[in-house]
């Protein structure tokens, strides 16, 4: 019985997860026997079912009193499992279980489908049950989901717990025996496989039959039994969550004290080392599972399961636990008396024998059970369960019945190659625990060792390029690359050589993917021309040796920077020129941004990039334009006001832009004076157009950067605008005015780009300011746009975030007079560019300025088919002048294999890159057409992709309960839904037009990693950190290393079901990090992290973390640091109390949930499924 095997496996397997190597081994052989019985079930489904199964099966198994010989070895399975299962059953709606009983045996679940506990800590376990673990890890991103689901179910409490929360060493429950048990497990596994098959088919033995009834009874009894726990429920009405209750029940020291001591429990939990707890538990279980102990353990499970909280955390709700525990025990005793007395160890062995028919019934129900078993969100259990339960009836039966024509061996192989599929309908929790790594590009042997460009710099939407355009069309995937060319990178090889080796025909830079015909010739990998190598290329500057061209840095690194010789300059490098334009109209004065801007400027004047020639200038404008002359000899800046704004001219030819080094004092004086100078003006006008025109005249000669601060709608002089937004229409279905109202700003930007001037815009508006029109100055001149809506100097957090942003802006690297060219292998061409730049020719972008925070996207199209090539390359070459006046070329090359197989293309898709590209295309669509078109395009793109995959996989057409996705695209619906609910594309929710336009602009210009946070924020439950802090406190003695690694904090999907009133959650939205503090967070945690004693002390709007000296606070800071590591500047932290009015901001971003005007994730999936033919 495969089923048995699976059951047995989970405990051991769980920790093993993540070990791919083992999976491979196991995957092939293991898959065959297991899957045979019901080959129809898709792997994904099986996976789900499996999770549920173990619980049920375990229950059943335990009941048969027949002990297995040699079972003693397998101590890994804790007896308390039984308790858990009971609990799970309680939560099951009776109807579902009964309905499922009739269903065919789901035993087919291959071991690999096991619930992966994500981070398998112990390799030992892996070895034994490698198959299970490995597979589970491979299947999609089950880590998260599987865990929570198990939470409801008790199957492998120990394993899960360790994997998630506990530190690896301590985690092993069976430490002493582990090695021995491993080997024994191995044997068992084999046995199971061989045995499993026949048993499944054979008729149930009488024994088995007998067993069935009691089990079912149990299941049904449980719900009834619940009332018994009445007292507990009463205590804690909101948290009906079974898992929670169990958790509570279990004191970490459960072994010693079956009944938890509420007061002390917490302390112990937090402070205590997990190892000790585990051991205690183990002992308990082994010796004789006392009811109390059993409950204790499983309780920990749910916690861990949910988002991988360490089990110690579970103890938080002690008060509740105490009342709850007794009833549980009571139940347990009644229902399970027999199993209880059984020695826990033999369980596994028992499972091996043919499963009783009852088993099957139970198993069939498992799939639905799964849903219910999923960690009922503590905060919303009663309702929460319902939605889960709903899908079961519809989706459950079809899966079993639907024929999936994948043969078993093929499945095994596909898993081997990472081509497994997932049924999205069954796997609601598909976000894997950690940040998803970019898919790896696997190249053919020739370039196998060549290092491809880092995915953070350049990523293609597919990691295998379809051979022909028709193949691409069949896959329905967008083809393109997203690129972050000027990213701040460490260890960038910079080389200076007399002549840079390039292809004579297509001007490609030599790169790691060229082919060396011999030591004197190389063949270009883009146009296939054979070129000569210059003599000096034989010389390796690093080792100072001749002869081996492959040691050259150009050939070793696919990201490289050349210092360009003079041929690459059109004119001598110009000095860095910075011109600042300040809006000083009355609205700007009211917002008070000038103060902050000037003080940041003042502070960071010295840090602005540039050599001794750096020049700065300042212009203020209201209805008129004010110039500041800082000529030599003046002891104070001289103001000149231009009254003729329709025909603007420069009041004097010089000293408006002054050398920063020479006139630093004057500049500083001016910056101090400016905020006061206009503090009392009441001019409502804002002549942005005129100011820009004079700024252009000022910068014309040398190029540079114009920074515009705008606080209101420009309403004077050229380029004045009318308010277009209708505030009453902010949530309308169709959004008008996404297009610029006039092309004045665009023409200006084009003119600027011709003179190598870039305009950056800081919009600090109080009211509608027509971002769509004004942002044209940045969009077409390679600038950047920052938006601080409703900026007020009284709002400290806005000031802080502006100051951080502006500081980064001032001090970050900058490249002047840049151009970027994208070259593709012959047969491909760039179709469309996305980002802020001016396209000067079909493959050349003109970037007057390039900054390290700008990302770009390119759609790629076919010119001819690629049938005769094995790999294709994209090369992005960015030529720029750095702030020291050096001309440099930064070259990135990415090489991708070509494939002619549709399934391979689908499996190689890179969801994040696809989302990045789709969002850019959607912005174009909404501007060219309208927003609802763009929204439809999102949905259609998703449907098309899944349709295409269905065809690629030869799945039967027509409706089924499944939505089969390749693992590579499993997250696509999730992200698409995030996009649909994003301020840029949402409808039905009031969104200010400027905010929407800014969000769209971000879609176009953010680098991919930022964009993903922008689209689908990262949600973490930070209890793990707190637990870790407390835990490591105890063990600090041995090692005081500051660099101790942070524990892995699993990512949660953006759904309120994960929220928990006893925990603190962290949501990283890119530029904003929100800490969501539940109402019932233990006071000592609050004290340690936020310095308050109860949640109620938090205000409605709290920004920034207080400074507290505690291990918990330190670790949180380190975690924040890690989150901020890749960001341009560290994010603002907002603390949100559960009941505060700011909660809406948090809830709004929970895009998996349903809102008034939008679908929940599951509904969205159902919609997609219905559309997939």
């Amino acid at each position, binding site marked *: 019985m495969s089923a048995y095997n699976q059951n047995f496996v989970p405990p051991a397997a769980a920790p093993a997860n993540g070990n791919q190597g083992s999976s491979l081994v196991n995957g092939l052989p293991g898959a065959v026997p297991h899957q045979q019985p019901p080959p129809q079930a898709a792997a994904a489904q099986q996976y789900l079912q499996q999770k549920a199964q173990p619980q049920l099966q375990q229950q059943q198994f335990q009941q048969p009193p027949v002990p297995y010989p040699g079972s003693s070895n397998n101590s890994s399975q804790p007896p308390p499992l039984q308790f858990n299962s009971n609990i799970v059953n309680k939560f099951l709606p009776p109807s579902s279980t009964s309905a499922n009983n009739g269903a065919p045996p789901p035993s087919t679940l291959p071991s690999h489908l096991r619930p992966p506990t994500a981070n398998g800590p112990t390799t030992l376990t892996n070895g034994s049950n490698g198959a299970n673990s490995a597979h589970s890890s491979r299947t999609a991103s089950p880590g998260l989901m599987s865990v929570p689901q198990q939470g409801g179910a008790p199957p492998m409490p120990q394993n899960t717990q360790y994997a998630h929360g506990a530190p690896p060493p301590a985690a092993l429950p069976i430490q002493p025996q582990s090695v021995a048990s491993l080997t024994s497990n191995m044997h068992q596994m084999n046995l199971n496989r061989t045995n499993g098959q026949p048993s499944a088919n054979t008729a149930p033995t009488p024994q088995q039959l007998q067993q069935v009834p009691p089990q079912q009874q149990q299941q049904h009894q449980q719900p009834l039994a619940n009332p018994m726990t009445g007292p507990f429920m009463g205590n804690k009405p909101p948290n009906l969550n079974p898992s929670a209750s169990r958790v509570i029940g279990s004191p970490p020291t459960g072994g010693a004290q079956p009944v938890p001591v509420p007061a002390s429990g917490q302390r112990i939990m937090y402070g205590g080392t997990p190892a000790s707890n585990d051991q205690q538990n183990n002992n308990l279980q082994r010796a004789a599972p006392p009811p109390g102990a059993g409950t204790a353990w499983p309780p920990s499970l749910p916690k861990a399961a949910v988002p991988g909280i360490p089990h110690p955390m579970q103890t938080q709700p002690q008060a509740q636990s105490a009342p709850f525990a007794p009833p549980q025990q009571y139940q347990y005793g009644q229902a399970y008396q027999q199993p209880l007395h059984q020695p826990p160890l033999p369980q596994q062995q028992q499972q091996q024998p043919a499963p009783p028919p009852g088993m099957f019934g139970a198993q069939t129900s498992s799939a639905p059970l799964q849903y219910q078993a999923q960690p009922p969100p503590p905060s919303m259990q009663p309702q929460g369960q319902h939605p889960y339960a709903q899908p079961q009836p519809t989706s459950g039966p079809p899966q079993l019945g639907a024929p999936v024509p994948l043969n078993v061996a093929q499945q095994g192989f596909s898993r081997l190659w990472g081509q497994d599929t997932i049924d999205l309908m069954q796997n609601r929790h598909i976000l894997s625990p950690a940040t998803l790594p970019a898919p790896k590009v696997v190249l053919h042997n020739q370039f196998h060792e060549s290092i491809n460009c880092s995915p953070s710099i350049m990523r293609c939407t597919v990691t295998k390029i379809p051979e022909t355009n028709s193949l691409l069309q069949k896959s329905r995937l967008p083809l393109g690359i997203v690129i972050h060319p000027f990213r701040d990178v460490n260890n960038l090889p910079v080389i200076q050589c007399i002549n840079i080796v390039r292809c004579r025909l297509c001007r490609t830079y030599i790169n790691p993917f060229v082919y060396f015909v011999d030591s004197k010739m190389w063949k270009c990998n883009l146009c296939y021309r054979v070129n000569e190598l210059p003599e000096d290329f034989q010389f390796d500057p690093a080792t100072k040796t001749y002869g081996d061209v492959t040691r050259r840095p150009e050939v070793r690194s696919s990201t490289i920077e050349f210092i360009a010789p003079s041929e690459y300059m059109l004119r001598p490098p110009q000095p860095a020129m910075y011109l600042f334009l300040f809006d000083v109209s009355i609205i700007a004065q009211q917002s008070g941004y000038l103060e902050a801007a000037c003080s940041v400027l003042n502070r960071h004047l010295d840090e602005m990039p540039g050599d001794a020639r750096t020049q700065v200038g300042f212009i203020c404008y209201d209805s008129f334009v004010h110039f500041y002359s800082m000529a030599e000899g003046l002891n104070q800046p001289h103001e000149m006001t231009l009254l003729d704004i329709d025909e603007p001219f420069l009041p004097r030819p010089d000293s408006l832009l002054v050398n920063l080094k020479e006139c630093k004092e004057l500049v500083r004086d001016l910056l101090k004076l400016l905020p006061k100078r206009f503090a009392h003006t009441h001019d409502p006008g804002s002549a942005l157009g005129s100011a820009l025109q004079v700024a252009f005249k000022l910068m014309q000669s040398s190029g540079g950067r114009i920074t515009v601060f705008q606080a209101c709608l420009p309403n004077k002089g050229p380029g004045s605008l009318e308010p277009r937004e209708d505030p009453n229409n902010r949530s309308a279905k169709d959004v008008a005015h996404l297009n610029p109202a006039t092309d*004045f700003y665009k023409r200006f930007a084009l003119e600027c780009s011709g003179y190598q001037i870039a305009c950056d815009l800081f919009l600090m508006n109080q009211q509608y300011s027509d971002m769509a029109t004004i942002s044209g100055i940045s969009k077409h001149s390679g600038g950047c746009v920052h938006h601080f809506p409703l900026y007020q100097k009284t709002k400290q957090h806005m000031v802080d975030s502006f100051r951080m942003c502006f500081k980064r802006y001032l001090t970050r690297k900058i490249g002047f007079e840049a151009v970027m060219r994208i070259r593709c292998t012959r047969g491909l061409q760039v179709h469309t560019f996305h980002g802020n730049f001016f396209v000067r020719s079909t493959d050349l972008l003109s970037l007057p300025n390039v900054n390290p925070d700008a990302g770009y996207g390119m759609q790629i199209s076919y010119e001819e088919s690629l049938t005769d090539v094995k790999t294709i390359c994209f090369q992005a070459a960015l030529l720029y002048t750095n702030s020291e006046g050096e001309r440099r070329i930064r070259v990135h090359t990415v090489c991708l294999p070509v494939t002619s197989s549709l399934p391979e293309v689908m499996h190689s898709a890179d969801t994040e890159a696809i989302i990045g590209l789709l969002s850019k295309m959607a912005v174009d669509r909404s501007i060219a057409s309208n927003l609802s078109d763009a929204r439809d395009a999102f949905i259609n793109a998703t449907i098309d992709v899944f349709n295409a995959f269905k065809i690629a996989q030869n799945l039967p057409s027509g409706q089924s309960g499944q939505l089969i996705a390749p693992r590579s695209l499993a997250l696509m619906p999730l992200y698409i839904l995030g996009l649909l609910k994003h301020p840029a594309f949402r409808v039905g929710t009031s969104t200010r037009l400027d905010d929407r336009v800014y969000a769209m602009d971000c879609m176009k210009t953010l680098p991919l990693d930022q964009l993903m946070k922008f689209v689908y924020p990262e949600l973490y439950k930070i209890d793990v950190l707190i637990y870790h802090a407390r835990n490591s406190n105890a063990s600090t003695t041995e090692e005081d290393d500051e660099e101790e690694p942070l524990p892995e904090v699993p990512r949660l999907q953006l759904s309120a079901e994960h929220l928990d009133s006893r925990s603190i959650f962290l949501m990283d939205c890119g530029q904003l990090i929100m800490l969501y503090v539940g109402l019932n967070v233990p006071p000592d945690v609050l004290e340690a992290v936020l310095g308050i004693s109860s949640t109620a002390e938090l205000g409605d709007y709290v920004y920034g973390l207080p400074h507290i000296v505690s291990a918990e606070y330190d670790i949180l800071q380190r975690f924040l640091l890690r989150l901020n590591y890749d960001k341009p500047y560290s994010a603002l932290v907002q603390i949100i109390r559960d009941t505060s009015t700011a909660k809406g901001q948090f809830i709004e971003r929970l895009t998996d949930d349903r809102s008034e005007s939008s679908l929940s994730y599951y509904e969205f999936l159902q919609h997609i499924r219905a559309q997939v033919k």
Partner: protein
Amino acid sequence: MVFNFTAFTYIVALIGDAFLIFFAIFHVIAFDELKTDYKNPIDQCNSLNPLVLPEYLLHIFLNLLFLVCGEWFSLAINIPLIAYHIWRYKTRPVMSGPGLYDPTTVLKTDTLSRNMREGWIKLAVYLISFFYYIYGMVYSLIST
């Protein structure tokens, strides 16, 4: 053989159509240059945009002549193109000056190929109508 108004119309149409053919050829060449990197899109758009309206007006003027002299068939075969021109100009990007072509979008492959195709098709249409106008002129000269 009488030189009537219809014959005059056709002669004017012939001359006008010759200009239109030149416009179309210029259009095709300009976009081909863009495609092959020879020209800066800003310059190219600046040279193309002023020619758009004259071309449209000239075409409409010829058809007005057909209307006046009752050459319904000639008018009919031109009406689709007039409609297209009007639609095209109505959906042009936001621009302050006359013209159709926006330097920031003209290099998108879609736009580029659409403009190329439009150029070739118009060239074909103008050429065919050129020969038709010759026929119409001769016919109108002979018929009376």
